């Protein structure tokens, strides 16, 4: 508690003043600078509150007093003070030109660990997973920043971020828990489901990132510090849960070829098949290899070192890899329907990525949905000339040489397939074509009130696919090598299904009409009255149907009913009601605008 001065009886601090403290007072009470306070708040996850009454003015930031007292007992606070004192020593040594001492002191800078803080903030593992969105987005962002010495960010940390993000992706891919993907202008969004928690993160496009000056990197790096630690522990726990040793040992050659992710996949796949005891013995021998290999990755490894390392590699024929992946597929038992669906989406399909396609994203997605993927370059599982490749992902204006046995599709096809959970026909995504619009899987179109045209198409395709779910496996076995045939069949079925659905809908409509008329007759409504009503019904909302009036009086308007009810509400409820109405109206306006634009676009297209 802040200083306990004598307070006259009855003058005890009460209410908000006893519960909250302003930021200035908090820093004074903790005897730290604002920077340290900020760092503490970030690491401890302490945030300002809104007291019911802002007793010290409206423009101040208030913290919960409990939070601040909680900070006062934080060992980290003491560590940060030590660090500051140590920095002063270094500064002093430098000022005295005692380089040696300064260097020695710098080497012995006090460090702190955040593991206890993580456990404190996330008492259960699920808590940590729930809060992982920001962590992943940040780590992926830093992983994509240029690892250049002399920039504001240490190269070591960028490498660490890269490693952590790849580890996370490898886990997600291995457990097939990726659910949704979305290419946005900002980057690629992914949504995975781990232990029932939906985790969404954003990875920037694989391009040079723009470092702006209006950003305080100290703050971001403090956040990153926490996030790196958190993700490390989370990865550890997750890898443990699938029986893989955590700090993964990567295939150095693949790593050198910037295919860390693929290397991780291989590691994870082999690791999971291995028995834990065996794992232990092997790991001890590999540890040494790991350590010198780590050093190599830190320093950008030269070709010479690469050559030295190559002979240490285990054999990496694609066949062996396939074996491993299949083995790993067989050994899970407790998986839900969703995972099975995801796992089998691209099953038995081989993909090949062209040179120009952003490899990392697709290398992550396709295996996550059960596909096998290769790319152009060294150390790849299979070559471009492989006969079994079903889809080649290309992103260029024209494709010169084409294999007839495979489809050449744009990258968006993969993302759309994943979101729709069916194999979409590749015709619309051919090379050089403008692909159909890319739709966000995070939008609930029905709730939004507007469904884009392509979403409807996808829905129809899904419906037909669902109908065909039973015979599909047979087809799979028969003519997997001939996907053209397969798709043609699918098209046939789809058209038939459409016709059937149309007929059914017509029947339903007729039936409904009959019932309606029957009902009206029972309630004593004349035919002419219904006719007059019908017009207003069609134009207006469905509510009109429930109105029990026969004749609509001239003096009253449609909203009279609303007015009547509104009149009787309490002021609070009325305000709420009006707010809801306004927001609904806004939504409607938005939809109307979309429809209007659509209408204009189609008109200009046809006209």
């Amino acid at each position, binding site marked *: 508690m802040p200083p306990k001065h004598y307070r006259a009886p009855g003058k005890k601090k009460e209410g908000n003043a006893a519960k909250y403290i302003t930021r200035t007072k908090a820093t004074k009470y903790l005897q730290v600078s604002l920077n340290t306070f900020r760092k503490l*708040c*970030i690491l401890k996850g302490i*945030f*300002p509150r*809104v007291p019911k009454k802002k007793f010290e003015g409206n423009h101040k*930031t*208030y913290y*919960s007093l409990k*939070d601040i007292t*909680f900070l006062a007992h934080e060992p980290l606070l003491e560590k940060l003070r030590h660090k500051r004192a140590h920095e002063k020593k270094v500064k002093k040594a430098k000022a005295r030109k005692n380089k040696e001492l300064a260097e020695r002191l710098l*080497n*012995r800078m006090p460090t702190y660990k955040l*593991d206890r803080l993580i456990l404190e903030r996330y*008492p*259960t593992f*699920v808590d940590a997973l*729930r809060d992982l*969105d920001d962590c992943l987005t*940040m780590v992926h*962002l830093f992983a994509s*920043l240029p690892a250049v010495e002399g920039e504001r960010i240490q190269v070591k940390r960028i490498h660490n971020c890269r490693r952590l993000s790849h580890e996370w992706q490898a886990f997600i891919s291995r457990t097939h828990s990726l659910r949704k993907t979305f290419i946005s*202008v*900002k*980057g690629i969004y992914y949504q995975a489901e781990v232990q029932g928690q939906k985790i*969404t993160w954003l990875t*920037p*496009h694989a*391009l040079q990132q*723009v*470092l702006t000056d209006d*950003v305080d990197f100290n703050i971001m790096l403090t*956040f990153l510090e926490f996030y790196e630690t958190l993700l490390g522990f989370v990865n550890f*726990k997750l890898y443990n849960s699938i029986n893989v040793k*955590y700090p993964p040992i990567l295939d150095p050659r693949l790593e050198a070829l910037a295919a860390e992710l693929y290397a991780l996949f291989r590691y994870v796949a082999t690791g999971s098949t291995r028995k834990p005891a065996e794992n232990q013995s092997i790991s001890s021998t590999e540890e040494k290899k790991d350590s010198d290999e780590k050093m190599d990755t830190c320093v950008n490894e030269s070709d010479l070192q690469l050559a030295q390392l190559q002979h240490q590699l285990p054999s990496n024929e694609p066949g062996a890899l396939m074996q491993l992946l299949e083995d790993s597929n067989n050994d899970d038992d407790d998986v839900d329907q969703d995972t099975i669906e995801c796992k089998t989406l691209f099953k038995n399909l081989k993909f090949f990525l062209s040179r120009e396609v952003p490899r990392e994203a697709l290398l992550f997605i396709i295996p996550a949905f059960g596909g096998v993927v290769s790319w152009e370059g060294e150390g790849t599982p299979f070559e471009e000339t492989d006969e079994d490749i079903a889809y080649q992902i290309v*992103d260029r204006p024209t494709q010169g040489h084409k294999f007839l046995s495979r489809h050449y599709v*744009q990258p*968006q096809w993969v993302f759309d397939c994943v979101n729709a959970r069916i194999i979409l026909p590749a015709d619309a995504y051919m090379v050089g074509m403008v*692909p159909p619009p*890319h*739709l*966000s899987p*995070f939008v609930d179109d029905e709730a939004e009130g507007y469904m*884009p045209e392509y979403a409807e198409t996808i829905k129809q395709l899904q419906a037909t696919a669902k109908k065909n779910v039973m015979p599909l496996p047979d087809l799979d076995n028969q003519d997997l090598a001939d996907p053209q045939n397969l798709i043609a069949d699918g098209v046939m079925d789809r058209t038939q299904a459409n016709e059937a659905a149309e007929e059914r809908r017509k029947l339903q409509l007729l039936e409904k009409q009959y019932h309606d008329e029957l009902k009206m007759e029972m309630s004593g409504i004349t035919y002419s009255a219904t006719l007059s009503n019908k017009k207003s019904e069609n134009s207006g909302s469905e509510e009109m149907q429930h109105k*029990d*009036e026969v004749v609509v009086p*001239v*003096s009253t308007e449609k909203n009279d009913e609303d*007015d*009547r*009810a*509104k*009149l*009787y509400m309490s002021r609070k*409820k009325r305000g*709420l*009601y009006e707010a809801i*109405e306004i927001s609904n109206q806004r939504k409607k306006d938005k939809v109307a605008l979309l*429809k209007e*634009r*659509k209408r204009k676009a189609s008109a200009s297209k046809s006209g």
Partner: protein
Amino acid sequence: MGKEKYEESSSDEEVNSSSDVVEASSDEEVESSSDEVEASSDDVESSEDESSSDNEKVEESDSSEDEVAPRNTVGDIPLVEWHKDEEHIGYDIKGRKIMKQPRKDKLASFIEGADDPKNWRKIYDEYNDEEIELTKDEIKIIQRVISGRTPHAEVNPYEDYVDWFEYEDKGHPLSNAPEPKRRFIPSKWEQKRVANLVRKIRAGLIKVSDQHKEEEHNVYSLWTDDTDSVENKKHGGYVPAPKPKLPGHEEAYNPPVEYIPTAEEINSYELMYEEDRPKFIPRRYLNYRSVPAYDKGVKESFDRCLDQYLCPRTRKKRINIDPESLKPKLPSRKDLRPYPTTCYLEYRGHMGPVNCISVDPSGQWLASGSTDGTARVWEIETGRCLKIWEVGEVARQICWNPSPDRPILAVVLEYDVLLLNSGMGDIDIQTKMKELLHISEPGATEDAGDSKSAVTWIQHEKHDGIRMKHFKAVLSIEWHFKGDYFTTVVPSGDSKAILLHQLSKKHSETPFRKLGIPVTAVFHPSKKKFFVATKKFVHVYDLSKVEKIQKLETGVREISSISIHPGGENIIVGSKEGKMCWFDLELSTRPYKTLKVHSKDITRVTFHRTYPLFASASDDCTAYVFHSTVYSDLNQNPLIVPLEILRGHKPEHGRGVLDCKYHPRQPWLFTAGADSIIKLYCH
């Protein structure tokens, strides 16, 4: 050392006496001198065993400087002077005499010189007694020396100074101090310090800096199984940061066309306030490869960080309710019929806004007063105008006597109240009326000094009625239900504001003390009670005791009208802010229900005499019809149901419906509008 000895010996034996070196030069002499040198060298040979080797070394070192060793070894002596008379000029290295060259004839040498083009570069070496031809390089050197430059062009005279001693970290360039002793014996203190460090390292107090590498992967299973089960709740209501909004279709790199704003729309964003402007403008890229890096990526991430540690967090309850569920459950309107819904008749004829209407107790006639200075009586069922009185002034209020056998109309003008015989009813009634409305003596009412000035009862000649002249403008009038008494309200602050009149006696009273400025006053429909409405309160009086029973707090800003339920226990009050209050006198002095009905002033509220209906008229050109059931059971609250909004009047000078009255027996509503029309709404 050897050279010195040579010089000494040679100087002892002979002195070179050659005067002109050029002349004295001959082959013989050279031979003889060489002999001599040989001989002399023999002499010194024994003494020079050691020194010769030294000499050779010197020669070697000389040759390294690529110069031909001088043949003469006499050293730096004044040759001209000492060897002037000698035949030799000195000795060679072996000690033999070097003979002088035979002198050349001056003329011959001149001729030779003139013939030889290289003569200019020949100089005579006195020491070795020979002519030397200078090479080009040597001449260059000479020229450089003459011009005061360094002899060799490649030599940089201003070379950077390289100190021969390293000063850095030394403090002082040189020290002549002898090496101290301590440099040679092991330090005691160092030994102690090392011992101390060793002890500390062994004890584990100092860690060798190998730990650096271990930190790299300092991860372990943080969440064990028991932490999952432990109730490890967070303190102080931790509020997790809200998750960032998920992207919609418009954020796609290739969104559907309808999500892309047109150029005009984008331009219109410029006109918006910066806060309202959309943060993100969708764009369409035709293929994935053309998507550029997102320039605001880092900034947005940073903003998210700022939000996370700077934004105050509170838990807000977000109610996701159907707006329909907020609506109160009202009984169906169908069950509450009949009530006025449609305009059935219009009574046209007035030339100005109709201020007031009144329905006669039989329900046959409708009286109306207008700003055009007329009062009219209409037949309700046909809409025929029966009678017109030209009152000459604005008729503010009009009121039928509630008693059926007294068809008298009370019309309020500015200062006057006219009591007119409507002329309805049979002959008996008419004769009675004539009697009643006749004032025998004009000064009959003048008894009390106070009330005298308040009201004067005068016979009105033109319309055959009574004219009551008030001291101030009259605001409202209301009959007692029996038809003999009536009250008028004059909005003044004194005790004469409310007047009670008795028609049969033509007598007026002011029984009430002053209570602010009254707006309107009403009699209780059955009991001896009286209601006076001031601007914010309604006072309830007991007429038999003449005392205040209740004071009702309306909570509205300004009361405009008031009406009593026929049961007498409920009243409604309309206000100028469009609010209507329902009071249950037995329940409380505060409103049981306040309804914000109209957007403008309420001009009149009125109850139906027999049907459970009441209505309000307002300047927003609407009249609102309500249903109201008052239960005889005291535990049950009255049921108020809004029924119908009646529209149809047009606004005139900002005024709408000025008055509304119910038909005494039918569920019909009359409304008088500022558009000089009276309307009848029927069920």
